[in-house]
């Protein structure tokens, strides 16, 4: 019984692993941190898997657990991340913003997104994943109106970060 559970879980995760990679991409900024978070999310998903009854799609359930894990871990290490190289990042953005090739623009954008807080990142993530507001609100457990309001604020915030 346990073997079957393990087998089905690993197979599903193998198939949908990009969701976890993408969450890691938004919440971490180096290779080691990416791997650590991936592993942590995998363990949390596996722990929660017996409670997954297939009411939601596996991928939807994965979004929820992965984001929750990332948000929880992010909160634990928040102080460290914020004090480390915040000024540095901001400085680099200012220096790079004049270069307008698309690749450079993207680099700056990702850096700006990294400066958002944990919940804002989760919203951006789901937005980038092409989820509509109903799905965003369900995954994050907030109202649809709240999700829209937050998203608009994030867009404004990003503009401020990019054009200080």
């Amino acid at each position: 019984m346990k073997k079957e559970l393990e087998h089905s879980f690993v197979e599903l995760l193998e198939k949908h692993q990009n969701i976890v990679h993408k969450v890691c991409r938004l919440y971490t900024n180096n290779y080691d941190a990416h791997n650590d978070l991936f592993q942590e999310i995998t363990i949390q998903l596996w722990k929660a898997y017996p409670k997954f009854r297939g009411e939601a799609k596996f991928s939807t359930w994965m979004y929820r657990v992965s984001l929750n894990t990332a948000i929880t871990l992010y909160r634990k290490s928040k102080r460290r991340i914020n004090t480390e190289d915040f000024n540095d990042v901001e400085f680099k953005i200012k220096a790079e913003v004049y270069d307008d090739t698309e690749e450079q623009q993207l680099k700056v954008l990702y850096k700006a997104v990294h400066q958002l807080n944990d919940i804002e990142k989760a919203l951006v993530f789901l937005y980038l994943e092409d989820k509509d507001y109903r799905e965003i609100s369900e995954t994050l457990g907030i109202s649809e109106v709240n999700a829209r309001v937050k998203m608009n604020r994030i867009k404004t915030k990003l503009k401020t970060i990019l054009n200080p």
Partner: protein
Amino acid sequence: MDELDLLKKDWKKSDDKFPKLSYNQIYSMILKRSSSIVKWIFIISILEFVLWTGIAFFIKDTESMKRFESYSNNSVYTPLVIIGYIILAYFFYLFFRNYRNISVTDSAKVLMENIIKTRKTVRYYVLFNLGYLVASTIAALFVEFNNDDILINQAQQAAASGEIFKFYAVFIIATVLMLAVVIGVLLLFYWLIYGLLLKRLNSNYNELKKLEI
């Protein structure tokens, strides 16, 4: 174009950029729960130490312990206690190191090596505890025979009536029997606690081994 839309365009293309983890790689990640078992071994060993120290503290004020401590020739017993604590501290360190090592490992091979190490540490720990029990019992008997007036008297009487051999034989047999019972209870205790934890660790080990092949 909105900044986020630009990001979204790139986001959709990023699927191929991520490493593709294999079934086995993901599977060995979920076997990381080994680390929680090893953590429990560490915690339980500390709790066990607290329990024994608590019992020792509790019986400290009893009549017989006071008498035992009043014997001046504690040159055998005190070093034994000190050495015992040092070795125990070393075991705690080993348990903690095993836990640290396992929780930072992500390769199946290193995880397996660490599981073997943990199993060995537990085995040595149990052997040490039992050996220490035997050694301290012998030391306690030695101290008693050299200091307890009643015992010394009895031994002298036995010697006078020519039954000294019988006198010691009764003591030794009684001690061995008591030790056997206590060791039996301890073994049961260890088997219940560490044995069950090790069993789970072993099944993780076997799963990892299958992956290796």
